[in-house]
């Protein structure tokens, strides 16, 4: 190939890498200091672009000078930084004391609210930003024309890296950021004002996200889908680089930028999955990313997050459970067809959420990709019925098998890691599975999926199918609950609370976790199979990131510290969505607001609130 083309293509890769790094550096700083998995980082990026397409043209009216353009970009970034501060002060500060995962749920609520707020304020039409004055043209590089603005972007990345280095090494604020990244408790013990440090970090993180967004306006138009399109990619960059490592994020961004630029030449459809493949490979080889370090607190006996001492059902719980199950089973008698339909879905999601909380609450294994096993179960059942010509019954048996099989396969690698890296590896595998279902059109039907996945004749009425789902879901939930109380469940909790100690008393931690991961995959696969037959079709959204996030939201709403919380959370989440969706186009705003309200009112989830109520009486 022509060397000048290779050079220009590699410059294109560097320009993308630079943009990606600016955004990712903010995320990695925020995570390093606060340990918050900040889903709202993508929303800050989007807001940066929207503020910039509003502010910059207004400034350019005064004078078309490059300086005013860049002043506008910096103003936009600062505005977004202040929004980050607002999020910290109004929301995150109130929930620092609760399990770290809970903040993830709160930021997810923010994502939903910002999406609709942007639609409301700026309207649904994409807004193209102005080009940068003085940088509109192309520059000839060995006979190939290359945009001047992208040459400028290539410089921005290293410049931001340099400025961040100066900040981290030459200022007290930076030193504190580094210290908190290494050991947050120690910084607190030394009397540093953590509140101020956190607020400052959130400002810096949101500022960088906003800067990344504002710098994009000469290249892409501001659109309401920007947040979700960037957030996973940015997470991947920070994880590959090592969470908390700015230099690592830079290396990872350059790596991804180059792989994308040259990958599309060989495999034009690779962009869907490339970054996740890279992340899976890096994490399997280097469990803490390129430049990350093992969690300093990993060896310490930290206060565990999750189910502490599972109590058996007391009298009140027994009564509640009896009423809940009885009214559920009687629902077809007094509810209309639609109520039966919704109850069927709630049962399916309850099983999926319960299996996830079996991992998260009981095992301390946080999975960001649980929908993979749900979706693969659905695909196994759906493909057997439509392509294999089998009836529903054997297909429903195959669903948990497929879920378990893939959970065993992926879990083999996943359980070698811990914490956020483990979570991100589950996400990577889920995205790879998603990409296969999406891309293998001949077999899986691609993104259109496969239709015609309907129950056998005897179960085709909504009522009969409801009872079938109820029997399967309740049976599986009770079986999993039994496992939590069995020695196997206690062993998982021991491994969660202190891996070295569990290891010291002779527990094979890795094997137990692997078995737990597989078992959760079996349950999720069954839920997926039941879901496919209730919808009549399968498609890749069943194993997409939004589905995984929904499951996480369900267990967090329910409370990861209680055994049955996941069931309550699934019912609450689905009910809220079902109530708001028909009411208004802005139902995502209301869903997000409800999530945030519940997080603030019940910081330990609905199940946790019930536990506290019980403890008081």
């Amino acid at each position, binding site marked *: 190939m022509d060397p000048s083309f290779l050079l220009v293509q590699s410059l294109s890769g560097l320009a993308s890498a630079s943009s990606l790094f600016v955004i990712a550096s903010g995320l990695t700083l925020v995570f390093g200091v606060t340990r918050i998995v900040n889903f709202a980082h993508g929303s800050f990026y989007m807001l940066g672009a929207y503020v910039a397409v509003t502010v910059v043209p207004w400034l350019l009216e005064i004078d078309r000078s490059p300086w005013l353009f860049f002043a506008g970009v910096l103003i936009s970034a600062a505005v977004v930084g202040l929004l980050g501060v607002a999020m910290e002060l109004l929301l995150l500060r109130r929930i620092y004391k609760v399990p770290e995962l809970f903040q993830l749920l709160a930021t997810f609520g923010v994502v939903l609210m910002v999406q*609709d707020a942007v639609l*409301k304020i700026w309207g649904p039409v994409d807004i193209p930003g102005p080009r940068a004055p003085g940088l509109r043209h192309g520059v000839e590089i060995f006979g190939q024309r290359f945009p001047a603005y992208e040459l400028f972007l290539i410089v921005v990345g290293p410049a931001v890296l340099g400025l961040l280095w100066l900040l981290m090494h030459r200022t007290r604020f930076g030193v504190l950021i580094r210290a908190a990244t290494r050991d947050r408790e120690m910084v607190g013990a030394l009397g540093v004002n953590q509140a101020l440090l956190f607020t400052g970090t959130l400002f810096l993180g949101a500022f960088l996200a906003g800067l990344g967004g504002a710098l994009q306006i000469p290249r892409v138009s501001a659109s309401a889908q920007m947040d979700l399109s960037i957030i996973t*990619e940015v997470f991947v960059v920070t994880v590959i680089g090592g969470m908390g490592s700015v230099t690592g994020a830079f290396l990872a961004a350059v790596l991804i930028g180059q792989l994308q630029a040259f990958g599309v*030449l060989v495999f034009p459809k690779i962009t869907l999955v490339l970054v996740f493949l890279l992340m899976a490979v890096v994490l399997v080889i280097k469990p803490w990313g390129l430049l990350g370090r093992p969690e300093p607190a990993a060896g310490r006996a930290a206060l565990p997050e999750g189910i502490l001492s599972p109590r058996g059902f007391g009298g009140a719980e027994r009564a509640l459970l009896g009423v809940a199950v009885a009214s559920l089973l009687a629902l077809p008698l007094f509810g209309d067809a639609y109520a039966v339909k919704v109850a069927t879905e709630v049962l399916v999601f309850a099983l999926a959420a319960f299996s996830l909380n079996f991992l998260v609450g009981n095992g301390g294994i946080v999975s960001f990709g649980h929908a993979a096993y749900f979706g693969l179960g659905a695909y196994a059942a759906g493909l057997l019925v439509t392509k294999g010509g089998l009836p529903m019954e054997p297909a429903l048996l195959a669903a948990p098998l497929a879920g378990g099989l893939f959970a065993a396969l992926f879990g083999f690698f996943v359980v070698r890691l811990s914490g956020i890296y483990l979570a991100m590896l589950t996400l990577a595998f889920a995205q790879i599975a998603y990409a296969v279902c999406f891309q293998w059109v001949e077999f899986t039907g691609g993104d259109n999926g496969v239709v015609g996945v309907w129950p056998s004749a005897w179960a085709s009425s909504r009522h009969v199918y409801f009872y079938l789902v109820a029997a399967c879901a309740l049976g599986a939930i009770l079986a999993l609950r039994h496992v939590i109380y069995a020695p196997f469940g206690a062993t998982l909790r021991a491994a969660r609370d202190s891996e070295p100690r569990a290891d010291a008393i002779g527990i094979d931690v890795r094997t137990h976790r692997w078995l737990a991961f597989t078992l959760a995959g079996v349950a999720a696969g069954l839920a997926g199979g039941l879901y496919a037959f209730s919808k009549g079709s399968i498609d890749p959204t069943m194993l997409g990131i939004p589905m995984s996030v929904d499951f996480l939201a369900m267990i967090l709403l329910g409370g990861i510290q209680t055994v049955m919380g996941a069931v309550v959370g699934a019912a609450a989440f689905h009910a809220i969505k079902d109530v708001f*969706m028909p009411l208004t186009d802005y139902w995502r705003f209301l869903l997000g607001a409800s999530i945030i309200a519940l997080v603030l009112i019940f910081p330990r989830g609905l199940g946790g609130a019930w536990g506290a109520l019980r403890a008081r009486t």
Partner: protein
Amino acid sequence: MTMAFETLTRRGALAVGGGLAAAALVGLRSPRAQGAPIRIGELNSYSRMAAFSVPYRNAMQLAADTINRAGGVMGGRPLEFIFRDDGATPGDAVRVAEDLLTRENVAFIAGTFLSNVGLAVADLANQRRRLFFATEPLSDAITMAQGNRYTWRLRPNTYMQTRMLTEAARGRTQRRWAIVAPNYEYGQSAAANFKRLIGASIPGAEIVAEQYPALGRVDAGATVGALAQARPDAIFNVLFGPDLTAFVREGNTRGLFERRFVLSLLTGEPEYMIPLGDECPEGWIVTGYPWEQVEWPTHRAYVEAYRARFNDTPRKGSLLGYVTVQVLANLLNRANSLDNEALVEALRDLRTETVTGPVTMRGIDQQGTMGTWVGETVLRGRQGGMRNIRYVDGATVMFPEDEVRAARRSA
């Protein structure tokens, strides 16, 4: 098909709200349309794809009110649409469709935007034996391989629109073609149709490069570089929305489109033309909707009514919404029954005079013959537009009948 995007200013939102209220009042008070309203369930991606779906809903309201004022349908009953968000996923959409069918007691359902949502709802309709009038999803599969008795589609599908473009390229000499399409069903099937059809217009045409960036995440620099490297004479573009804007900007700066012939799907639709602004490239052959140049009297009347009521210009979605209601009203009058089997039979080869000319719901593949406009892009001031436009009747570019029979054998 698409991820579309568009205009809901605050004023627009008020107009929508006011429109809904007004529609309810008109439906009740109308002097001529009396009797129990005929309820039709309409589900669409009102939240995710507001750019398309809000103008679409506006126009449906406008059309329904116009019909109700003139006496309604089926001998004086008013039309009433129950609009619902389909959540933009098949899972949500199927639940919403069940809600409409069971709780809202609608006569039948219509709408949907994304192809996977449309297919899932179509299969539900087949299972429940209820009519589903698919309006926007473009996937060929809805009326071909996955077609079923209860599902009818109005809008020209991917094949039809691609064929309009390849026929517009007849007589050109460019042989080396590059394809750029979003990596999902719409893009893939447009590319596949293009490869099939271009040889008929330009003998000896070959594909020298293909790029399939992920939807909504085009890496424009790398994509433009890869296309330019293959030195094509011409480009077939399927990108739209934010991907299109990024691609066009990058391509303009790097000179990708200089001395190259470009065919581009949907680019002339206001939904995608407006966000391009002054970056709109010149001389591309596109499908689109140059509403301001369409001189048919009924179309002009509809445009004037739309602009007066919503204080906004019509989009492609508006046209589709308006034509949908015209076809459905004609259907109800013709069938004079809400029995879904009777409705399906009445739809077969039903011909309706609409604001976009006569539209027939072809019986063999249950696809409407609604057409669209083909023309050349041109920059007028700071906004793109189309010139040398011509309306291509959908009837002239439908799938050949033997292909339909082969594909729908299972249906």
